[in-house]
């Protein structure tokens, strides 16, 4: 149990690696990732929980990085967009986003991808309506959502196929 308001070392497991930096307890998880650990793939929009740009996975669950303190993530598995795929080996969702033009400026994209990663894990064979409901907490000001929905359904089919093969 820690009690001070002063900065201290915060040690987190991020994308499978132990990472640490110094921060005050009031620092949000998304600011710690971006400023403390220089992982700038996670974006910040509203800081009020509304836009979803700051979404990260904690123990596999999508959460708002702006509505959690960095200290609260100690001892948990944090996953950011940096670990979803690589340029050489993109995740099925990333391939589908590319194919369907599901991004323009890219501001919402990391949050969309990680939200959809948990959603497709929970609901592997969703309807279009279920996808729309799932991304209702992620705002996109560019695409009009249609292509994101198409990409999500396409990735879902691919992920189901991959699962059957295994």
């Amino acid at each position, binding site marked *: 149990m*820690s009690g001070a308001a002063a900065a201290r070392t915060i040690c987190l497991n991020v994308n499978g690696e132990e990472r640490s930096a110094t921060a005050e*307890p009031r620092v949000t998880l998304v600011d710690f990732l971006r400023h403390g650990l220089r992982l700038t793939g996670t974006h910040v929009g509203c800081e009020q929980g509304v836009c979803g740009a700051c979404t990260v996975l*904690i123990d596999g669950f999508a959460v*708002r990085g702006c*509505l959690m303190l960095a*200290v609260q993530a100690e001892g948990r598995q944090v996953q950011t967009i940096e670990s979803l795929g690589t340029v050489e080996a993109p995740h099925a969702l990333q391939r589908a986003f590319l194919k369907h033009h599901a991004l323009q400026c890219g501001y919402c994209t990391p949050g969309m991808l990680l939200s959809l990663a948990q959603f497709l894990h929970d609901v592997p064979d969703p309807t279009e309506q279920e996808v729309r409901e799932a991304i209702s907490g992620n705002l996109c000001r560019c695409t009009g959502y249609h292509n994101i929905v198409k990409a999500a359904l396409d990735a879902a089919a691919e992920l189901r196929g991959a699962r059957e093969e295994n």
Partner: protein
Amino acid sequence: MKPPPFEYFAPTKLPEAVALLSASENARLLAGGQSLMAMLNMRYVFPDRIVDLNRVAELDFIEEEAGTLVVGAMTRQRTLQRSPAIAAKLPVVAKALRHVGHFQTRNRGTFGGSLCQLDPSAELPAVALAYEATVVAVGPAGQRSIPFEQFPVTFMTSSLASDEILTAVRFTPWGGKVGTGFSEFSRRHGDFAVAGAIAVLAGETGGPIRRASLTLFGIAEAPKRARDAEAVLVGRRVTADLIEEVAALCVAHATLEDPFGSAEYRGHVAAAMAKSALSEASAELDRQ
């Protein structure tokens, strides 16, 4: 914006949390953070101390005991939504949760946090009122139980003292044949509702209503039971005409005015929501 400075404590036991809370004049409990963190980021609140309940494991549970169902304050909204016991005994909880924010906010947001936040449009306080739940709180003076009807005192303010912690919510599921309905209107999926209604009806298939609960939310400082409408329902068989008659009584319950809607508008939305919640509940009852 960023949160103001505060000292942070993350106790693992309830008595520790009580002691930490009462030792500061200006402390705040942190549950799921889905309301409080936004208020901190916007600097609506300036606590000197944050007491984080997320590591107090004893507050995260769903327990069935002798005809009651008890939900721990730190039970995540996601956990509740997926609990078979909740779905079987308190189906309105599951119906309402689909409308509480988004799946990402339900991954963190808790049952107790939503009750204490007491937003007038929030679904979970309305569910607690609909089922006549009892809230259990502990403070330095010990434990006490508060019927949910007496829990809200004014706009977004509960009757808890500043050094009390809500620990659990106790429900007594209705016996016999029960039908439930939930309906709300919001501008976009996941937004706070303009107004909504919850109906719980008990009786015999095709026979008269034995017990009725009709709760409106988004229409006053806190959720409200439409007692006049309930009195009309009991002893009668549900027909389309009866539903029209009781829904019309709901309009006058609305007192809340804000830039999103006048009281009159909210009252009419609530009446429409009451109509669909009652239809759903009576259809469910008839199927049994």
